[in-house]
């Protein structure tokens, strides 16, 4: 190839954007039934903030180390499309605990919260290290300061399906 042609190819290549690989995140989506709730969970003046035994919240779970999910597992609870409480779990989805979490979410009054610390315990994900062939997951656990309510401790039982 002569110099002119080489220069032409080079300048063409440098003008092309660097291709970016699409990020692949794998989540399971389902519901979490509240099986235990301490008194502060249902003592809010705003009824829409209250969490009680028998409530069923939408839940999404994202286990660590799968595709581009990253090093931390995450789980989110969404209450009636009014409020969300999403956790970055430092101790993972299977831990006797206590583990620490960092919470992000929105209250039932529309205010967002970021990087709020808390603790959780007795989390058990089944299967413990899910992959793309696991169509169903279950998760049980206990979370403190649930939905950003101080001293609200809940236990839950959740079941999920793999989102395609």
């Amino acid at each position, binding site marked *: 190839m002569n110099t002119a042609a080489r220069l032409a190819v080079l300048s063409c290549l440098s003008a092309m954007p660097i291709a970016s690989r699409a990020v692949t995140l794998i989540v399971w989506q389902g519901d979490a039934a509240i099986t235990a709730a301490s008194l502060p969970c249902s003592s809010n003046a705003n009824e829409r903030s209250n969490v009680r035994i028998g409530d069923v919240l939408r839940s999404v779970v994202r286990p660590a180390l799968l595709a581009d999910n990253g090093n931390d597992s995450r789980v989110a609870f969404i209450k009636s*499309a009014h409020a969300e409480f999403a956790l970055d779990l430092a101790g993972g989805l299977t831990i006797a605990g206590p583990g620490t979490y960092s919470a992000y979410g929105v209250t*039932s*009054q*529309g205010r*967002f919260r970021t990087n709020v610390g808390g603790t959780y315990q007795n989390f058990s994900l089944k299967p413990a290290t899910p992959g793309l062939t696991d169509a169903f997951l279950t998760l049980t656990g206990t979370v403190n300061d649930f939905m950003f309510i101080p001293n609200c401790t809940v236990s839950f039982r959740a079941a999920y399906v793999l989102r395609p």
Partner: protein
Amino acid sequence: MNTRVTLLLLVCSISAPLHAETAWIGTAMITQAPSICGNTAQVGDFHTAIYRPAGVTLGNDADSYLALISQRAYFSMLVPNNTFRSGINYGSSFVSSLLKFGSGTGGILSWSMSPATLDLNVKSAKLVFSIANFYAIKNCNPSFRATLLLPD
């Protein structure tokens, strides 16, 4: 003034807020969405809308929030020291349905609320608005039509 009257006056002057924190809650439907939004915003999508305007008489502080919440995600906007209106900027915080934790900024491109100001006598309101950078996607600027109710 005797002691009893003084004590009574002292107790009465420690007044509770007129109202606990106040927010209007309803539904926001997407009426327009550019193609750059992809699945994040499509015409006909419904979100729960929670509008918490600034105001001491509402039991709120000086900041206003508007949150758009779906079954599995939320996008919440904060306008500090002001209320939502055309031309104002917001800061956002969101968790996507794939559990990405994010933040961003954008502008309120248009805002038309009826009645124009919300107070504790406004039991329901209508709102038509559009924003820039929904879920921090540059130029994803959807338009919404919303109804709001005062639940308490």
